[in-house]
């Protein structure tokens, strides 16, 4: 009997794994068929921010020459977070509420958490692409004024931070995707993404907010602050930043909190609540 149970568990694990891979493949295939939409959606916001704050304004002389170096980690973090949120939340709410395409996946003989994990995994992959897209844009427009030197040790620290940032964006996407309705996607930009981006410690480091103490405390609810401060600590350690222990802790806590509520809401929706 014990042996039989073990075999069953193995079969279930195997089915769950195949189902997970297929669900990820499905989402990536759909996105790949619409690749220009993806490139446009992911590249446009960092492109405009880099063009304005990293090229035009320093040239005009309204911001200092050092500004591109100041904002570079923030642009990477922002691109990761926004891409991942968008990549998870929008398809999720559309699938659940409009096309109901997700029903076939929810009917798979696996725990519904697998469906949520597959959605998040796709968000993680997309968010990395989002982060990578920033690199060529930065080199083209800010290359001459970027003062960056990364040694091996910094790169080794950077990798887990990028991983955590991507997971954080996918969990936030899961939560947002279960809250907003398709009719509210348009409102998501001004109501949620814009405040997150502009108060997300891209153009300023968190320590610099000491002059505006109330804002300094309020922005702590913004997960992008922790992501950017952690990236800043590694990529541009010469610029003032939150101690890396606290910024990484902030990312981990935001993953746990948003992941918990996102998963809870997702399972509730899968059970028709």
């Amino acid at each position: 009997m014990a042996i039989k149970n073990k075999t069953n568990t193995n079969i279930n694990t195997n089915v769950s794994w195949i189902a997970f891979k297929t669900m990820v493949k499905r989402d990536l295939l759909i996105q790949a068929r619409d690749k220009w939409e993806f490139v446009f959606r992911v590249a446009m916001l960092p492109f405009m921010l880099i063009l304005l704050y990293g090229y035009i304004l320093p040239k005009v002389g309204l911001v200092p020459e050092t500004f591109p170096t100041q904002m570079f980690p923030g642009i990477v973090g922002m691109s990761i977070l926004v891409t991942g949120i968008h990549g998870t939340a929008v398809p999720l709410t559309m699938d659940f509420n409009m096309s109901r395409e997700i029903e076939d996946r929810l009917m798979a003989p696996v725990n519904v958490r697998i469906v949520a994990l597959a959605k998040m995994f796709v968000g993680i992959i997309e968010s990395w692409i989002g982060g990578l897209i920033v690199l060529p844009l930065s080199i083209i427009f800010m290359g001459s004024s970027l003062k960056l030197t990364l040694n091996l040790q910094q790169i080794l620290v950077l990798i887990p931070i990028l991983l955590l940032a991507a997971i954080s964006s996918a969990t936030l996407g899961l939560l947002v995707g279960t809250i907003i309705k398709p009719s509210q996607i348009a409102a998501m930009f001004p109501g949620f993404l814009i405040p997150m981006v502009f108060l997300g410690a891209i153009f300023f480091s968190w320590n610099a907010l000491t002059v505006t103490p109330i804002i300094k405390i309020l922005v702590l609810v913004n997960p992008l602050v922790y992501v950017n401060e952690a990236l800043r600590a590694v990529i541009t350690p010469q610029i003032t930043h939150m101690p890396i222990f606290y910024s990484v802790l902030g990312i981990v806590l935001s993953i746990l909190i948003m992941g918990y509520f996102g998963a809870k809401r997702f399972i509730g929706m899968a059970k028709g609540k």
Partner: protein
Amino acid sequence: MSEIILKVENLKKEFLLSKDRKINAVKGISFEVKRGEIFGFLGPNGAGKSTTISMLTTQKEPTSGEILIDGQSALENPALARRKIGVVAQHNNLDRGLTARENLIFHAKYFGMDEATANKRADEYLEKFGLKDRQHDYVRGFSGGMAQRLKIARAIMHNPDILFLDEPTTGLDPSYRTILWEQMLALNKAGTTIFLTTHYMEEPEQLCDRIAIVDQGELKAIGTADELKALIPTNNIISIKLAALDLAFVQQAKALPEVENATIQNGVLLLYMKHERPDFNQILEWIKTLNTSLQNVSLSTSTLDDAFIHLTGKESIDNGHKK
């Protein structure tokens, strides 16, 4: 393998509308479906059919009760239950961004099927459901009939023991409905139990082994079509065609001593008589008092439609298929 593929015990579903307002959509229903049956689940709009089907297919959590699929609780282990069931939803929930073939292959792989088996089964069903020529086209361009065929093909890709179909023939033209039924009968012959809801009364009457009639969240009756028809107090129904119909006639007719119930269906006044061999004279006398002329009068035996009206007090949506 259990002989009873589906066992439902005291199933209830409450929806909370606000803090102190709730709807009892399903009020404790119990029934069984035997392996190999074609089981019809009938009821007027809002009877709780879709809610029940959602619960049976693990898509909604019941407030209380138990659902056993092949002897195992679908509430305790929904993933295991899903392996044994196939679901054809009422709405189109196909993956629009995928081709017809991909819809089948991806579905099979969600069930852990290997590539070769998935391809083999996809070939078979695309051929059987007449979709082979369109297999590489995106589903978003499919007509209603094609989408419906693909939904059924997809639902049986993993070889379920029981197939749930929610209003499978609604919106299809009559000739296509016949084809679909032939396919479902073939599937049933091959061993798949079929559970369906429908609005068209002649379908369950001709094709279902057993039928359950639900109304307002309660199970009103369950049995074969003949057993349900026998529930009507008398088998005798007088249908009267008048030049002009008035809703007041129904009330007047109900007041007649020999009439049990009366309704208007497809422009014909139907009188359900209390006894067999009713007194025609009395009825004809009453008709004379009406402000209209008699065009036809006939005696007929009851249909499933009549049983439905008798049990639910509502007319089925099916217009013009009977009588």
